[in-house]
């Protein structure tokens, strides 16, 4: 019993158990679907088939291999998502600062931010598309809107988390307001800001993929709907699903790595092995 508990603390082992579990369930389903299939291709292919399709050199569309299709469209989707993400990140941070500076701005802006957040992307996308008339612009705007809220809300929470004593300390040294922000408030809110980024990054990518499906100008989402309609190999569909999932996870990881580089707080916490304490 003790041994099992000890093994449970090993992170890689937990991951491994999960992966094996998913593979087993997947394969059972794949066999089951293959047994009742009515299409020439198995709608739920075996895992090895999906993985093989990445290195398969036979063309699937327009002389391109599956890998080339997925890679080129992933880059397109990611670039659009990234532009929107950076835009939303900047605006979210600035708005959080403004809300902190002025209670009126907070009262005016915050409820509407939450409302925007509640509109489903699928509903919002066509509206924004008709407003802007350009799919590229609307993709960026939607990614920005989705990034904006978690970043603004988390950063604001971080700015508000600063204790009264720290203000009093700065006050007692007659620190100007600018210094209270640069030396105390902004460094204090960084961990919260990054939490916002970690939530927002995969959302921006998902949004970008979703908007891809609206119009046929490339991108992962566009290929996704095309491959589903059997315009392309079913493997492309699964390749895209797999790649999207990996990109989403990596985007969150990437934010964590950037945080490690920028903010010393996380490094210290890890050094003393007391993460998240206090």
């Amino acid at each position: 019993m003790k041994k099992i508990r000890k093994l449970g603390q090993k992170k890689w082992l937990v991951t491994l158990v999960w992966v094996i579990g998913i593979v087993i369930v997947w394969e059972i389903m794949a066999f089951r679907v293959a047994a009742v299939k009515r299409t020439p291709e198995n709608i739920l292919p075996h895992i090895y088939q999906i993985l093989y399709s990445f290195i398969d050199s036979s063309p699937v569309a327009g002389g391109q291999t599956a890998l080339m299709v997925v890679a080129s469209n992933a880059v397109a989707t990611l670039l659009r998502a990234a532009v929107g993400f950076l835009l939303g990140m900047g605006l979210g941070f600035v708005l959080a600062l403004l809300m902190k500076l002025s209670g009126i701005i907070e009262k005016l802006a915050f409820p509407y931010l939450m409302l925007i957040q509640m509109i489903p992307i699928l509903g919002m996308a066509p509206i924004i598309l008709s407003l802007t008339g350009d799919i590229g612009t609307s993709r960026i705007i939607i990614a920005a809107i989705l990034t904006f809220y978690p970043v603004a809300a988390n950063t604001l929470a971080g700015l508000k988390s600063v204790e009264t004593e720290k203000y009093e300390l700065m006050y007692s040294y007659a620190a100007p307001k600018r210094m209270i922000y640069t030396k105390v408030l902004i460094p204090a809110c960084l961990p919260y800001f990054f939490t916002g980024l970690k939530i927002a990054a995969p959302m921006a990518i998902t949004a970008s993929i979703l908007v891809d499906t609206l119009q046929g100008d490339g991108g992962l989402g566009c290929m996704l709907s095309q491959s589903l309609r059997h315009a392309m190999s079913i493997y492309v569909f699964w390749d895209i699903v797999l790649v999207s999932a990996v990109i989403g996870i990596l985007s969150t990881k990437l934010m964590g790595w950037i945080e490690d580089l920028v903010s010393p707080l996380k490094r210290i916490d890890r050094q003393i092995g007391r993460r998240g304490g206090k």
Partner: protein
Amino acid sequence: MEERMNSKDVQIHINHVGMTFKDNKGNDMEALKDINLDIKKGEFISLLGPSGCGKTTLLRIIADLLKPTKGSVRIDGMMPREIRMQQKFGIVFQSPVLLDWRTVRKNIELPLEIMHYDAQRLPERSAEMLKLVGLEEFANHYPKQLSGGMQQRVGIARALGIEPELLLMDEPFSALDEFTKEKLHVDMLDIWEKTNKTIIFVTHNIQEAVFLSNRICVLSPHPGRLSAVVDVDLPKKRTLDIRDTLHFSELVAKVRNSFEGGSL
């Protein structure tokens, strides 16, 4: 109770200071009533009393963190606000109030940065302060890597770094264990001797007040008022064993008996 002295020695002049707060029902709460006190340059003054006696309120009024509703405070003839704007206050709070993302050295340099201290002399100055509180080896540590006592010492070094006119300490050792506290008491006396700062020290611990200060202002609650001022005629250089002397016990007893009504 009034404590007045020859005006030319006086650094801090507390004149009929009163403070009334409104509680949440809107009733007036008199936290301080008619405080009159003169403090000389270089004194180590303790403000001693049970909770609710307004000792922290008085300290905060001196520090310009609160405005009194009655009376006035003059420090070197100036308003507390002027002294604060000149960055002449060094405050040590009950908790160390360190910035977690700054190293010990950078924390000490924070007020110096605020007052645009010469950047080239900054490392030298912080090194000097680190030496004063005995934390040279920990310059590049982060606050979370230090014990509570060490963190409080960083707070003291930070307060002293700007060469304050006045060192204001609000129950700085109350959260520390007995051993750490004793060590810091000795350190504090050492720092007082080396720097000759005027120190105002808020505490609810009689022994602590007697061991550290040269004068103790005893405050009584409801409303907070100055009920006695006790001179501590112990030598300026003190070691921990002074607490075992008869004279020390007599002083402690004297302070205890000076609370209004004889006891608490």
